[in-house]
């Protein structure tokens, strides 16, 4: 695989076990996302997709397993903000933007130039690099003409793009999108597919959790199908469609 040529994987999860009380969400998961790929993670409700993202971002702490970013950074030892600063960006399922702030302010806030302290960040707020990066990202997410309106009045799709833009501010190594096109119109979905494809980069892995199969097929270079916390298929989306086990899971047969 081409990722092996480059050395490390963007994210490498091994022997992951996550339980909530008696409920085993993920029994024993090994999962890898490589640089340069757009990796779709699909599966029925309760398959453990969001739990996987929660573990990677530090929101949920697993019982067992290793979670390595870039082959060397042990994410289990870092706090949520530290994981974000290490290069993991996550878009939430529900659009999460700061509604009272302008689009520009949302983006400005998303860039940490001084990762050691918030005070240093505040002192260096007027850094020209910040404004320059905001201008780049505004272009990328096509919200230039909405830069100075409060994020709260944006359309649903625009909020989703703004949130993706906020993650882009820090040039993440791993970009994780949790149902990015849920609730979007067809035009918005197409626009989002274009956006995500443009974000593909050799030094970035993109993880997309999505129920919309057509969308996944359109953008993903590789998919993993999860079922009850276990991968039952890994490969191309078109092969997933014909895979017997995947079809069983989606049709509810076991």
């Amino acid at each position, binding site marked *: 695989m081409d990722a092996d040529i480059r050395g490390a994987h963007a994210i490498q999860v091994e022997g992951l076990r996550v339980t909530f009380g008696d409920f085993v969400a993920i029994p024993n998961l090994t999962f890898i996302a490589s640089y340069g790929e757009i990796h779709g993670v699909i599966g029925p409700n309760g398959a453990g997709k969001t739990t996987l993202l929660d573990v990677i*971002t530090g929101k949920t702490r697993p019982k067992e397993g290793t979670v390595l970013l870039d082959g060397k950074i042990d994410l289990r030892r870092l*706090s*949520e*903000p*530290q994981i*974000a*600063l290490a290069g993991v*960006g*996550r878009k*939430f399922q529900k659009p*999460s*933007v*700061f*509604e*009272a*702030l302008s689009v520009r*302010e949302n983006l*400005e*806030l*998303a860039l*940490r130039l001084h*990762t050691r302290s*918030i005070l240093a960040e*505040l002192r260096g*707020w007027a850094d020209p690099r910040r404004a320059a990066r905001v201008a780049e990202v505004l272009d990328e997410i096509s919200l230039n003409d909405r830069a100075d309106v409060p994020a709260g009045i944006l359309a649903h799709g625009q909020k989703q793009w703004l*949130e993706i833009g*906020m*993650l882009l501010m*820090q040039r993440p190594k791993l970009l994780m999108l949790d149902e990015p096109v849920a609730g979007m119109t067809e035009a918005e979905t197409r626009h989002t597919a274009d956006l995500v494809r443009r974000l593909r980069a050799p030094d970035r892995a993109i993880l997309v959790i999505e129920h919309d199969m057509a969308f996944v097929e359109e953008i993903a270079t590789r998919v993993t199908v999860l079922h009850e916390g276990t991968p039952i298929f890994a490969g191309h989306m078109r092969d997933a469609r014909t895979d017997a086990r995947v079809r069983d899971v989606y049709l509810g047969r076991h």
Partner: protein
Amino acid sequence: MGGGMLFRTIAISLAALTLALPILGGPLAGSGIGISPYLANIIGQIATFALLAIALDLIWGFAGVLSLGHGLFFAMGGYLIAMHMLKEGYVNAGVVPDLMTFMGWTELPGHWAFFESFPYTAALILILPGMLAFAYGWMSFRSRVSGVYFAIITQALTYVAMLLMFRNDTGFGGNNGMTGFVSLLGLQMGAPQTAVLLATASTGAALAAFLLCGQLVRSPFGRMLVAVRDDEARLRFLGYDTVWPKLAAWTLSGVIAAIAGALYVPQVGIINPRLLSPEVSIEIAVWVALGGRGTLSGAVIGAVVISALKFWLTGFAPDLWPFILSILVIVVVVGLPNGLSDLRLPGLRRMRDGR
């Protein structure tokens, strides 16, 4: 967001009041446009309430952290300044504080040491409430206690403080509290000039806090607070440890509330544990809710309007006050989630939206 015409109007009004009070209440006191010491005293008290409301709006309106215990910080400032006045009167004028008399003490307990010094007291008024706010905030924010849970604990803390202060043997005057103040910084309590100067100091402090917090909320730090309010998890997953901006705003808020209390008590001439009752702290939140959260202007308007109403009403129907306050709460909750700024008053809207 606090930068409009309404903000400027309030700042200018407070500045004008601060400049005019010493003149209208001093040389011109007896003239037609003069201010009586009684009126000056009421203006001064209301100004301390406005200061207190600004403190709460900073943390509630901007960072989204509701405190139902700001009376705790207010009372701390009040008790500390009261201790200074009693101790100073005892040491320099030989006036024996009431609490010594009825407790049969021949000297004041150890924690009253050095309180005759104003600089020492002033430092404590800033440090003690600041430390308490920091410690409680640090524990709560680190363990992600927020929302209604945080608010209930602030209320409980204030209640605990009230029960503690009701005890006579703690050396804080018990249920009688502290009164009989002689002087403050050389100003005789009860003298007309003192009322005017204390009122002037109060409007000046309210103005200073209004401008300072106004600057703060328009700064990048203020945007960070708003981000905490709008979506704290999002901010955390952008790489910010949100404990620190919250803690900074919360501690500053507690200190401002304590300063308000230290200005209030010399003007009413008494402090007792009833200042720590739940109603007082809830009333502060009602001022801010009624005036409109997250604007600072709304906090000042809410505090001034409601407390002026209360002063007027207690003149002839004090028993009605709890009912009126409750009705106001219901009106805000049901009809005016953003307080008075929801009212479609053309003048007010223009002032608020104007830049």
